[in-house]
């Protein structure tokens, strides 16, 4: 299947949104390296963060193949406003409850998104998604175990989780912010359903766990059309962090 013209643009937007999501959550989670709540979790969250950066690298690779750009340049050399990750990932690392709430909301949503792409008609993406899905299954298991622990925890544990969900919940559905020209992707068979339908599927998938743990389901996203725009100060800070080495000597080979 040849991809060109408007379809290539739409596919590029999809790849950019997915790659930026993985890149940003990977870097956010890597901030726990050395300071996670326990030694074993330090290894686990760091390894998981590396997985996400690996997924981002693979997705930037596909995008670079499409646009002719260097994947590293796409990942690092844009201004913050040109990133297309969802607003859910724009809150800064926060405490452990924020990290778990963000991971749970993102991983469950990402899982639904991957399902809608794995049988797609563009083989490079469908093949990659099949591999990503195998790793993401473990990420979801990890987040689910922790969500359960925090929700049932006492001594301020549950209240911290509730505070995190109150902060992140209103932005959770931005993973499914409509993409520019997503109709072209659906017509071409690359994406199986519109993002709005995937959001409904995601809500149904998390409802049982939220009911069991008596947690409030995320509300609808405010201004979903801008769900992947308007990154605030926490992202500007993260952008400076992950660009430190690259910016130290532009064009250098490390």
């Amino acid at each position, binding site marked *: 299947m040849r991809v060109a013209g408007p379809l290539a643009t739409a596919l590029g937007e999809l790849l950019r949104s997915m790659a930026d999501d993985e890149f940003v959550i990977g870097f956010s989670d890597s901030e726990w390296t050395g300071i996670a709540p326990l*030694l074993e979790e330090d*290894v*686990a969250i760091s390894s998981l963060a590396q997985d996400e950066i690996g997924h981002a690298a693979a997705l930037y690779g596909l995008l670079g193949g499409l646009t002719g750009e260097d994947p590293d340049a796409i990942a690092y050399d844009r201004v913050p406003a040109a990133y297309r990750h969802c607003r859910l990932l724009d809150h800064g690392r926060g405490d452990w409850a924020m990290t778990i709430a963000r991971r749970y909301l993102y991983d469950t949503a990402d899982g639904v998104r991957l399902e809608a792409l794995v049988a797609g008609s563009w083989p490079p993406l469908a093949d990659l998604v099949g591999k990503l899905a195998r790793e993401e299954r*473990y990420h979801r*298991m*990890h987040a689910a175990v922790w969500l359960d622990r925090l929700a049932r925890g006492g001594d301020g544990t549950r209240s911290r989780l509730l505070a995190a969900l109150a902060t992140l919940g209103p932005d959770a559905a931005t993973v499914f912010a409509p993409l520019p020209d997503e109709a072209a992707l659906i017509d071409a068979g690359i994406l199986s359903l519109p993002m709005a339908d995937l959001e409904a599927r995601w809500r149904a998938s998390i409802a049982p766990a939220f009911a069991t743990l008596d947690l409030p389901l995320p509300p609808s996203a405010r201004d979903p059309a801008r769900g992947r725009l308007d990154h605030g100060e926490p992202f500007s800070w993260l952008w400076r962090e992950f660009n430190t080495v690259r910016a130290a000597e532009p064009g250098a080979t490390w």
Partner: protein
Amino acid sequence: MQHGGSVMAPDRELATHYARELFGRRQESVRLWVVRRADIVDLADPDLLQPPLDRSFKKPGGYVMRDKLAAARELSGQAKPKARSR
């Protein structure tokens, strides 16, 4: 089956995740068995594992086959097989 190591975790689910990360994230494992410390039976009694009497007769090294093989070859007229060249 080989002892991979130990992890500290608050419950079995997290123990399994941590075991996977500590002993499987570099694809060095094909399977992991995760058990609680309390469920491990520790057998360390030397009388049961390292008895004092000579047990060399239980090891295959106790039988020297070389001379018997040479005699059998001579009897059958077969030459000793050469080391295989690559």
